[in-house]
C-alpha cells in the first residue's frame, strides 16, 4: 500500500492552467523529491495538499489507502500528512517546548495547570526522534537555522511513535550551509528508517539525488517524469526540468562593446543570503543577475541601493558608498526601482505627479513654494515619453495599473539622471505589453554614461536586454554568461538549476 497517492490533480487560476493532471505516488518509507523551476507548480501541489487551495474537480487522493479530501487542512492533518514550510512557522519568542506543544495537548493537572515537567519530557522525546538534542527551554530565536529546521520537523511528527506520517518538507535546505544539510539528511534518513514517508521539494539537484529514492519532475504544471533516483544523473535531470538540452549554438547577437570605464564596483558583498559577491558594471552596460529562490539574488539589489545593511564595498566611479543608507546611495547617484511596488515604491495617498517627483522637487520650488504648473509640465513630459497610461498628471496613483505604476517609479529613478540604475525584478506582476515598454525604457536608459544592474526572475527578460548575466547560487556568483557568446534564456535556466551542484559542498557560507 502506498503512503500517499494523488491522481489527476489539476488547478486553474482565473483561466490559467497551473497544474495539469498531475499524479504523485509516494511509497511506504520512501523519500520522494518534487523538483521543477520557479512557477512549475511544485508549490501549488504542496498548497493543495496542505488545504490552502482547493483543486479543480476530478482530483483524488488517498493516504495509506484511506481517501483524503484535498483542499481541507484538517483532513490532511488527521490523515497524517504533515508539513514543514520554508519559513518553518516557529514563534521565535517562545521556547522550544512551547513551540513544540503548539497544536498539541499539554499534559494538565488539577485546575488546568500545565505539568511542565511532563511536557518537557514529551518534548525531549519528540526532538530526539528528529535528531535534535538541545535544552528544551531554549528560546527558539537563540537557535541556529539547522536546529530550527529540525525543531519544525519534530513538531510535525505524530504524538505516538508508531503512528506513520507523510512528512512534506518545502525547500528545507534553502537557508542551510552544507554541513547542516548533511545533519538534516541524517534526520530524514532516521525518520525514513522509522517507517515514515517523506516528500521533499528542493532546487538543489545534487541534494535531491543524494537523498531521494524517487524523483518527480514538474514543468509548466505538467508531470514530466517520475523516476528512480539511482537511474538518473545530474545532466539528465537538469534537461528534464528545463525541458530540452542546452542549445550550444545559441547567442546570435553580437557582443556589445562597453566603454572601459567601470561605473559600479561590488567587492565582497556579504549579508543575509549573500555570501561573497564581487562584480564590476561598466558604463553603458546592462548586467543581469539571476538565481533561484534562496540564492541571494533577492537581496543583492537592496544591498546596493542601501535598503538592507551589508558588509563589503560598493563603489561608484571608485568612490565608496556608505552601506545601509538609501540617502547615501542616492547622493552617490545610485537610483533603484523595486518590483515590490506597494511596499517599497508607491505612495497610495498621493497622485501620479507627487509619486513621480518624490525625493527631488527642488528644481520646481520657487520662494519655498512648489510651482505645481511647472512640475506638472515635467510630469506630462515623462508620461508621454514613457507611455504611461493615466487619466492625467494628477490622477491618484492607485488608479493606475501595476505596469503603469512601475513606469512612474522608473521615471522617478531616471529623472535623477543616475550614474547607476539598479532594477530589482522591475517587471514582477506587470502585464506583457507594459513589460515590453519597461524593457525599452531600460535599454534606452542605459546610455553611455550609465551602468544598469538588472536583477530578475525572468530569464527571457535577462537574455533579451542584458549584455552579461551573473548567475547566483548559495550566495555567490557561480557563472557569467555573455551576449554573443553563451547568453540565452535557456542557458540562464540551465545555469541556475545546475548552479547548486557546482558548489564545493565543504564550503560553509557565512559572512566572516
Amino acid at each position, binding site marked *: 500500500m502506498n503512503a500517499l497517492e494523488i491522481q489527476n490533480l489539476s488547478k486553474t487560476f482565473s483561466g490559467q492552467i497551473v497544474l495539469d493532471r498531475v499524479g504523485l505516488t509516494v511509497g511506504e518509507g520512501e523519500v520522494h523529491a518534487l523538483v521543477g523551476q520557479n512557477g512549475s507548480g511544485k*508549490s*501549488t501541489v504542496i498548497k493543495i495538499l496542505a488545504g490552502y487551495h482547493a483543486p479543480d474537480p476530478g482530483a483524488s487522493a488517498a493516504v495509506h489507502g484511506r481517501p483524503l479530501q484535498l483542499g481541507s487542512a484538517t483532513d490532511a492533518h488527521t490523515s497524517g500528512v504533515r508539513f514543514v514550510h520554508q519559513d518553518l512557522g516557529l514563534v521565535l519568542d517562545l521556547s522550544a517546548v512551547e513551540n513544540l506543544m503548539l497544536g498539541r495537548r499539554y499534559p494538565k493537572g488539577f485546575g488546568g495547570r500545565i505539568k511542565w515537567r511532563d511536557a518537557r519530557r514529551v518534548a525531549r522525546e519528540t526532538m530526539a526522534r528528529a535528531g535534535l538534542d538541545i535544552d528544551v527551554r531554549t528560546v527558539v530565536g537563540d537557535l541556529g537555522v539547522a536546529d530550527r529546521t529540525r525543531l519544525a520537523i519534530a513538531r510535525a511528527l505524530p504524538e505516538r511513535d508508531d503512528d506513520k506520517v507523510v512528512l512534506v518538507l518545502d525547500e528545507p535546505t534553502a537557508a542551510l550551509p552544507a554541513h547542516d544539510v548533511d545533519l538534516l539528511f541524517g534526520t530524514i534518513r532516521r525518520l525514513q528508517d522509522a517507517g515514515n514517508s517523506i516528500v521533499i521539494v528542493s532546487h538543489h539537484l545534487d541534494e535531491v539525488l543524494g537523498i531521494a529514492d524517487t524523483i518527480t519532475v514538474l514543468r509548466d504544471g505538467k508531470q514530466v517524469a517520475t523516476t528512480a533516483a539511482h537511474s538518473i544523473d545530474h545532466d539528465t535531470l537538469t534537461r528534464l526540468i528545463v525541458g530540452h538540452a542546452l542549445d550550444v549554438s545559441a547567442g546570435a547577437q553580437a557582443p556589445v562593446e562597453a566603454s572601459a570605464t567601470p561605473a559600479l564596483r561590488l567587492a565582497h558583498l556579504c549579508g543575509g543570503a549573500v555570501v561573497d559577491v564581487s562584480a564590476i558594471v561598466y558604463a553603458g552596460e546592462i548586467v543581469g543577475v539571476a538565481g533561484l529562490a534562496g540564492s541571494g539574488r533577492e537581496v543583492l539589489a537592496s544591498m546596493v541601493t542601501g535598503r538592507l545593511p551589508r558588509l563589503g564595498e560598493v563603489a561608484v566611479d571608485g568612490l565608496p558608498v556608505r552601506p545601509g543608507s538609501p540617502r547615501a546611495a542616492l547622493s552617490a547617484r545610485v537610483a533603484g526601482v523595486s518590483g515590490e511596488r506597494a511596499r517599497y515604491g508607491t505612495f497610495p495617498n*498621493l497622485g501620479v505627479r507627487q509619486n513621480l517627483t518624490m525625493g527631488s522637487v527642488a528644481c520646481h520650488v520657487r520662494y519655498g513654494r512648489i510651482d505645481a504648473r511647472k512640475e506638472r509640465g515635467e510630469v506630462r513630459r515623462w508620461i508621454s515619453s514613457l507611455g504611461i497610461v493615466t487619466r492625467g498628471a494628477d490622477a491618484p496613483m492607485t488608479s493606475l495599473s501595476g505596469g503603469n505604476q512601475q513606469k512612474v517609479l522608473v521615471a522617478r529613478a531616471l529623472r535623477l539622471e543616475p550614474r547607476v540604475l539598479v532594477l530589482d525584478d522591475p517587471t514582477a506582476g506587470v502585464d506583457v505589453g507594459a513589460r515590453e515598454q519597461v524593457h525599452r525604457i531600460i535599454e534606452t536608459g542605459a546610455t553611455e554614461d550609465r551602468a544598469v544592474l538588472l536583477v530578475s526572475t525572468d530569464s527571457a527578460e535577462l537574455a533579451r536586454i542584458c549584455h552579461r548575466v551573473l548567475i547566483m547560487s548559495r550566495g555567490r556568483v557561480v557563472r557569467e554568461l555573455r551576449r554573443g557568446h553563451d547568453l540565452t534564456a535557456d542557458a540562464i535556466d540551465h545555469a541556475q538549476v545546475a548552479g547548486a551542484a557546482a558548489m564545493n559542498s565543504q564550503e560553509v557560507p557565512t559572512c566572516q
Partner: protein
Amino acid sequence: MSVALSQSIASAASEASATTAVGVKADAPPRQPISMVLGRFSAVFLWAGFIVIFGLLKPDIFLTVSTFRLTFSEGVVTAMLALAFLIPLTAGAYDLSVGAMMGLSLVVMNHFSAYHSSVPIGLVAIGAILLCCLVGLVNGLLVVKFRVNSLIATLGMSQVLMAAELKMSDNRQILGSFSDGFQNLGTRNVFGLPIVMIYLLVLGAVIWFVLEHTPVGRYLFAVGGNAEAARLAGLNVERLTCGSLVASAAVAGIAGVVYAMKIGTFSAEAGPGLLFPALAAVFFGASQFSRRPNVWGTLVAYFALAFGVKGLQLAFGPGTFWIQPLFQGLALLIAVALASRVVGRTRRSRRAQRETSDPEPEPLEPGEPAGQNPVIELA
C-alpha cells in the same frame, strides 16, 4: 466614502484607455459619482443643515450675531489644537499631548502674570511657546530615536506635563492678572469677527500652505503614506517625523497663549478636555475635500459639530450639558467606521485579485510588512 467604488471606476477607466493605446489622455477632471462628491462635502452640508434646523426651531436666539460670534470664538482654541494634532498625523504619528501641551503654555502664562508681573507678557508668551517646542522635541526623539510608538510616547508625555502643571499651579486655579491691552487681543472683534477667529484663519492658512504647497508638506504625506518607500526615495523620515511633533507642540503652545488672552484663567482641566473634540474634528475632516488629513476639512468639520452642539443646547435648554461628548464621540465613530469599512473592502478585494492572478507568489523575505495607518488610507 466610496473609495473602493472610485478605485474600481478609475481602474476601469485606465483599462479602457489602455486598449486604445494612445498613451496620454488630456487632463480631463476625473468624473466621480454624485454620492462621493456629496460625501466629500458632507461636513459643509451638515453645518448648513444645523443652521437651517436650529434656525427654524429657535430663530430668535440661534440666528443671532452674538450666538455665531460666541460659537466661533469659543471654538478657536480647540480648533487650533486640532490643527496641532493634524500636522504629525499627516506623517502617520499621533500627538496625544496637544491638550496637555496647551495647558503647559497656559500655566506658564498665568504663573508669570500672577507672580512675576515684571516680565513683559510678550516675552513670556514667546518663552512658553519655545518651552512647548522643547517638549515636542523630546516627544520626537522618543519616537524616532527610542522607537517608542507615538501614541504611547505622547500619552506618557501628556501625563508628565499634567504633573508639571499641577505642581506649578499647586492644584489651584490661577487667575492671571493680564493687562487690558493683552486681554483685548483675545476678546476684541475685528470687522465684526472675533479677533481670535482671525488668528485661527491665519494659522490655518500657514499650515495649509506648508502642507499643500511646499516640499516639506509633501514629504510629510509621503512618510504617512509609505514610510519605507519614503526612506528609499531619500527622505529623512526621522527628521520629518520629529519635526512634525515639534511643530505640533508649537501650535499647541500658541493655542495656550490665545487661551490666556481670551479667558485668562488656568485650571488643570483646561487642556486635556480639549483633546478629544480636536481629534474628532481631524478624523472627520480627513474624510472631507481632498480625502486625506487637511486643514480646511478639519476646521469645517470642527465648526459643523460645534454649531450642532450649540444648537442642541439652545433648543433643549441647560439640561443638555451631556450633548457635547455624545455628539463628538458619535461623529468620530461614524466617520472612522465608514472609512475603515471601505479600506477593509479594498484590502479583501486586492487579496482576492492577488490570489487569482499570482498562483505561485515568491515567498516574501522576512521583515515587517509596510505598516499603514488606516486613517491615512482615507485619502
